[in-house]
């Protein structure tokens, strides 16, 4: 091998505390070095030209530049050597500025250190191999999991950009949590009025295929080439035929079915369409509530269906789609508030959740938009809101702030006053968290214009007294115990990761935190990427967030998908793990630890061997450090390369 070494002065940045000429002279004696020189600014145009000329003149196979941090100029010099006809990976850098000249005062020691760093780079370079990126074809189609507002936004953005979109929603209708809300803060505009049209857009978009009442069964493949099995759950209604006329729901005799959409506030029929604006507007039979399924003679719905869409024999169906990218937007669920026995939640009808309250407020809700006490249907006059139920509470394993409860409670207090002008609202809070455009002003309006009484303190107990509910707590600002007699208690329940989120994460081979929220690629710089190439995140599945943030993330994820799928062929970074098939014993330890699912088992003439999916491999080298016989090696940072660097330090010539 023929190596050229270039030592940079970086003006006086390096030369002031490193004897650059001496380093260049020492490099002449290193292994395979056939050319060595120093230059004033190696990264400057003449500096780079000098490298190119040396490569040609001295027939160099590889180049070492000792200058600043490779994090700064490695890409620059890789392009330089490439221009002169070398492979860009036949290049190494020694960082003698940030790691030497700028941090050490002793010129003799700095010079020695710089020389050794150059030797390390030379020894590593001797083992570098030409690496060529692989081209892999990509399916220009995206799967969006979750039809809440984030998923809807991502779907529409991708579809508008020309990508085919498959949207999968677990519930019979898209819309997510937002569709259950009456109004949104801080503008107090109608939730369904702003969301509804977007839902319709989804239904009508020619490039969006919607699978509602469906779940992800399995995911295989890798970036650009995922294969996803979608389980279409049996709705017992042929949706091809169902027109959403609602005749069945009117006639269904099972009228005490738990109403999921309305959070159990009221009942629905066994066959139902969750809400009037549902997309798709199709009926679904809740098997557990249907008389027919309980062996009783019924079949009323089938009798009345004008299109003959009812099919009690329907089975789950698996649909396979091929996509190039996946956006997870599975949202959140309410924290289990029934664990707060002291609040009587679940036991007292007049203690309800904030989301039930939303359904109460909604004109299309079960109460027709009237606030009533569930116990007796009377209009409540005294309403207590308790904040941080299931948030910021390490005792139930929910130490985090859900972020949106302060704001919706303020909204609900305002809405209460609007609905019942002579009502009084009390809000027990820990801290008011209202960063955001117009948010803090909004909470102030609740207090100042709408007279909501904010009490700083924890509620210790809620119990009935007569037909009222007594709310007992402490006002920590005044240091006094407080007791309020309330007609209705609304628990501002926080959120948690959607049920089964970890299971989905495992299918997608993405990581999730201790609470089940999906892990973003980097907390700051990769908020919508995951560490699995081709899988992106949007909305609350990544961490609880309000509507505008969810929508932004939906768009951001869409932008990432568009960037990824803007070409037909993806180019993979060749600094990936490589399996020596002859030495692999198929123990699959690498498969177990790979954070990206980039290694799979392959059957090679009856023997199990590891196989790296180059497109998926991110080049972390964890597998390399795991493989006991070193049969899997990270290209460009192989064991031998690292050992060569170490040995360059431990053996002086």
């Amino acid at each position, binding site marked *: *091998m*023929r190596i050229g070494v270039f030592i940079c002065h970086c003006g006086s940045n390096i030369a002031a505390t490193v004897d650059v000429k001496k380093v260049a002279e020492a490099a002449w004696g290193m292994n395979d070095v056939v050319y060595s020189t120093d230059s004033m600014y190696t990264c400057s145009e003449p500096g780079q030209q000098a490298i190119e000329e040396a490569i040609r003149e001295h*027939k160099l*196979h590889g180049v070492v530049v000792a200058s600043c941090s490779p994090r700064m100029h490695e890409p620059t010099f890789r392009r330089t050597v490439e221009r002169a006809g070398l492979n860009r990976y036949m290049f190494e850098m020694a960082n003698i500025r940030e790691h030497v000249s700028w941090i050490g005062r002793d010129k003799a020691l700095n010079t020695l250190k710089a020389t050794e760093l150059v030797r390390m780079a030379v020894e590593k370079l001797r083992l570098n191999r030409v690496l060529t990126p692989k081209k892999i074809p990509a399916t220009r189609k995206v799967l969006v999991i979750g039809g809440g507002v984030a998923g809807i936004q991502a779907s529409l953005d991708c579809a508008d950009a020309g990508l085919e979109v498959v949207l999968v929603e677990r519930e019979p209708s898209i819309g997510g949590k937002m569709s259950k809300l009456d109004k949104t803060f801080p503008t107090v505009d109608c939730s369904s009025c702003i969301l509804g049209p977007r839902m319709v857009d989804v239904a009508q978009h020619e490039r969006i295929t919607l699978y509602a009442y469906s779940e992800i069964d399995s995911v295989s493949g890798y970036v650009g080439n995922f294969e996803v099995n979608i389980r279409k759950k049996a709705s017992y209604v042929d949706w091809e035929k169902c027109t959403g006329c609602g005749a069945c729901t009117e006639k269904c005799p099972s009228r005490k079915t738990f109403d999921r959409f309305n959070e159990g506030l009221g009942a629905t029929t066994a066959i139902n369409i969750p809400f009037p604006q549902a997309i798709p507007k199709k009926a679904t039979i809740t098997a557990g509530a249907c008389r027919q399924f309980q062996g009783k003679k019924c079949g009323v719905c089938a009798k009345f269906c004008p299109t003959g869409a009812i099919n009690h024999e329907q089975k789950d169906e698996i649909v396979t789609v091929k996509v190039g990218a996946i956006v997870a937007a599975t949202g959140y669920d309410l924290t289990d508030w029934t664990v707060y026995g002291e609040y009587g939640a679940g036991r007292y009808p007049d203690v309800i959740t904030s989301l039930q309250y939303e359904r109460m407020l909604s004109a299309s809700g079960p109460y027709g938009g009237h606030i009533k006490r569930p116990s007796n249907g009377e209009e409540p006059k005294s309403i207590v809101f308790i904040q941080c139920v299931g948030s910021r509470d390490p005792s139930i394993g929910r130490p985090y702030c859900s972020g949106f409860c302060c704001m919706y409670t303020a909204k609900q207090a305002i809405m209460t006053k609007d609905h019942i002008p002579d009502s009084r609202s009390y809000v027990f809070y820990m801290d008011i968290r209202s960063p955001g455009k117009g948010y803090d002003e909004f909470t102030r309006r609740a207090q100042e214009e709408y007279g909501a009484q904010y009490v700083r303190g924890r509620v210790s107990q809620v119990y009935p007294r007569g037909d009222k509910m007594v709310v007992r707590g402490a006002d920590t600002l005044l240091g006094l115990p407080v007791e309020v007699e309330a007609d209705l208690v609304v628990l501002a329940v926080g959120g948690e990761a959607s049920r089964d989120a970890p299971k989905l994460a495992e299918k997608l081979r993405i990581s999730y935190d201790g609470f089940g929220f999906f892990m973003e690629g980097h907390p700051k710089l990769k908020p919508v990427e995951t560490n699995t190439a081709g899988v992106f995140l949007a909305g609350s599945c990544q961490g609880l967030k309000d509507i505008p943030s969810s929508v932004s993330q939906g768009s951001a994820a869409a932008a990432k998908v568009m960037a990824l799928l803007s070409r037909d062929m993806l180019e993979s970074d060749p600094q990936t793990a490589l399996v020596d098939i002859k030495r692999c014993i198929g123990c699959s330890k690498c498969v177990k630890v790979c954070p990206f699912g980039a290694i799979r088992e392959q059957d090679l003439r009856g023997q199990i061997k590891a196989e790296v999916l180059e497109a998926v491999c991110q080049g972390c080298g964890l597998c390399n450090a795991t493989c006991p016989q070193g049969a899997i090696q990270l290209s460009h940072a192989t064991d031998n390369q690292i050992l060569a660097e170490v040995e360059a330090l431990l053996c002086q010539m």
Partner: protein
Amino acid sequence: MPELALKPAFNPSTPNPYLPQVATVLEVIQETHNIRSFRVRLDDEQAWASFSFEPGQLGQLSLFGVGEATFVINSPPTCKAYLQFSVMRAGEVTTALHGLQAGDKIGLRAPLGNSFPYNDLKGKNVIFIGGGIGMAPMRTLLLYMLDNRRDYGDISLLYGARTPQDLSFAYDRADWLGREDMRTVLTIDAPAEGWEHKVGLIPNVLTEMAPSPENAVAVTCGPPIMIKFTLQALGKLGFKPEQILTTLEKRMKCGIGICGRCNIGEKYVCIDGPVFTYAQLQTMVNEL
């Protein structure tokens, strides 16, 4: 008491069989995508002037820091300008050898092993059957015979590879094809655009060529599967095992019959080989 300690004497002037001679790479020829030929010459003028070998003998190429690997010298003994070795990239040493350039220094231990019985072949018809890199060990004998053409009877060559791009020695082939005094048949496994020669597996083409076993010797070398079927084909054509010559390859280290790894029963490929008749192979244990 009889003298029982018959320990070997040591003569300090005994040459060190492990010490390679330093040689310079004169030229590197890219034969196929994974085969390169190296032409080398000893640095020591005196040693070079007295260097001689017989066709079929081995040389150990040394890359210091990596190791040694054994190849048949495939230039003819009549060539006094260089020794040629053809190297297929497979393991650590061959990969490193492929990194050599003209002017680089290497170590050479040669000649080692036995050789083709080129004297016994005199007056005989000889057919060479080579597959892929297997052409290399035979090339030395073929070129030697062509240089001493009058000593031999008919000479024919069947040389095949998977594709046209896998055929080495383009610089020889033109000459071989053009010669009046030898018959040259080239073949590839499957049809390819622009290919003007035979298409088909070597044993099949051989059967088609139907060389007569009368006063003939077949020399064959190539991948194990090809050898297996070529031997069958030769048998059908009436060649006796004594009329078939081949070369063997084994993992070798010392090249002088000591280190103990290239044995097949009591035979050591590095000293008793690499050239064996098929008849010899049949008497050896079955451990290829």
